[in-house]
């Protein structure tokens, strides 16, 4: 199992989410993140003085998939998150030891699968 952790622009999230869902990967998490990289900080002006904020807001997207699905997810993120400008973000891939579904307590790669059609409509 692999965890794909991507720091992306906010506007990239919705197309990535839609396409991953379409391809059968509904499970993901996002969180608001602030970070710095090659992209410079933001210069604010407040009451006539300037203020440099050295981090910028990004979204952190986390998806855990079976090893074989990793390239597909990475490709999807690259496709939608890349503008070619500095500040597009980064993707990290990490190994995952275990995955456990809380509702049932079952473990293993099958908990990463999308629900079957019958389960969804039930």
């Amino acid at each position, binding site marked *: 199992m692999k965890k794909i952790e991507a720091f992306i622009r906010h506007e990239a999230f919705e197309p990535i*989410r839609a396409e991953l*869902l379409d391809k059968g990967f*509904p499970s993901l998490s996002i969180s608001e993140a602030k970070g710095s990289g090659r992209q410079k900080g933001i210069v*604010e*002006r*407040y*009451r*006539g*003085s*300037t*203020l440099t904020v050295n981090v910028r807001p990004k979204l952190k997207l986390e998806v855990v998939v079976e090893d074989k699905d990793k390239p597909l997810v990475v490709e999807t993120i690259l496709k939608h998150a890349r503008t070619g400008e500095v500040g597009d973000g980064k993707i990290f891939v990490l190994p995952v030891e275990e995955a456990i579904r809380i*509702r049932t307590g079952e473990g293993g790669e099958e908990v990463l699968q*999308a*629900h079957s059609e019958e*389960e*969804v409509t*039930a």
Partner: protein
Amino acid sequence: MRKKIGVAALLAVFAALLLPTVASAATLGEVASSVEAKTTELNMTWVAVAAALVFLMQAGFMFLEIGFSRQKNAGTGVAKVLVNLAICTLAWWAIGYGIAEGGGNDFFGDSGFFFHFDQVIGGEAANGETAMLMLYGLAFCAVSLAIVWGTTLERIKFGAYVVYAVVFGAVIYPLVAHAVWGGGLLGDIGGKPVMDFAGSSVVHLTGATGALAALLLLGPRKGKYDANGKPRVIPGHSMPLVGLGVIILWIGWFGFNGGSTFGTEEVLFGEVMLNTQLAAAAGVIGASIAVYLKSRTLDVGMAGNGAIAGLVGITAPSGFVEYWAAPIIGLVAGLLVVYAVLAIDKLLDDPVGALSAHGLAGIWGTLSVGIFGSARLVSEGASPGVWYSVFGDEPFSATIGQLGVQGLAVLFTFVVVFAISIATFAFIKGTIGLRVDDAEEEAGLDISSHGMYGYPEQFIPQPEYSTGLPSGLGSGAGVAAPAPAQMTATE
């Protein structure tokens, strides 16, 4: 006068319709005295409305200061305004009003303490009208006190409010008010009275001077100046709250200046209201231009400071100048406030710009009466402004003299208020302490002084509502649930 006769005629007609026998017997004298009583009632009704508007300004200060504070110091601003208003009210009732308005000598009044019914104050028995004016005076005192705390945000100990509010409401503000408005020292300087219509110096400079004294003993917020002493920006957390505060203050100012006519019968009433609006508008424009020239942006907070500076500037001259002078006074105040805020920021940490918007604009407003005061409107014994010597034939000796008298009011206010305030704050610093400790300041005054956050739910996770649909629709009411919700739905 024409209006009065009109009202008299109208009343006579009504009286004739309602009570034919009595009306025919009523003499002209009786009608006139009844008109006079009605006029007083109408005037007092306006003062009551104006007092309520001036009390509303407390909400303006509250929002302005909370908006300019960080999120961790949002709740303390609410507690501060409420407690100060409460203490100031009781101090004014018990002592302050007597010192300000209770006759007496050049320096303080000596009657009217613990204001009560039928009390003899300054040689006259108090009636309902006196009570209304006493309440109106309190509203001014409370505004002046609210100004003091603008420089002290985010680091002052709550106890300091309690002690200083008593001294301020009982002694400091009343002494200045007595000198200018209560028949004291500044009412007659070599035959000329100080003209401060609604308190550019009495209220605003007084508040700002107290603010300076507090700030000098309090010091800047942690992190305001870097190792080399260069100022750093500590942004406030809500510009919409700042804007709301400014607009509330602006509206309240119609009670502040307009109410200072103490009546509705003269044309002056309308003139003062219009002057107030013209100057506030010009203040916004002045500050916006200045800050744009300085930073190439239209700064939100500075536009607000410009409105306040314009209003403070017109407070003294609102009843003494022609319409054309009001926008000039406001514009200058608006330009002044931006350069002053930036200059003061290099040395002193004044988060809301109180020293500039209330102090310097207050001085400018007081002096501007000596520049633009119109012969048609100035007080009895006073001379018109210097403008009318330059562009008219008023003798310079008289107009410069009036400007000097206005300057004296500024000097008197500053010296008296600063001396008592610095002594009071030094006493507070030496006893209960003036400033919270470092850890409390870093955590914010909300949690460290009041035990709760200003936005209490910010760290409390909220339970989800699974379908995202209103309960009335149910889960299968034909509205398609969003895709992710569908995928996570349980069987």
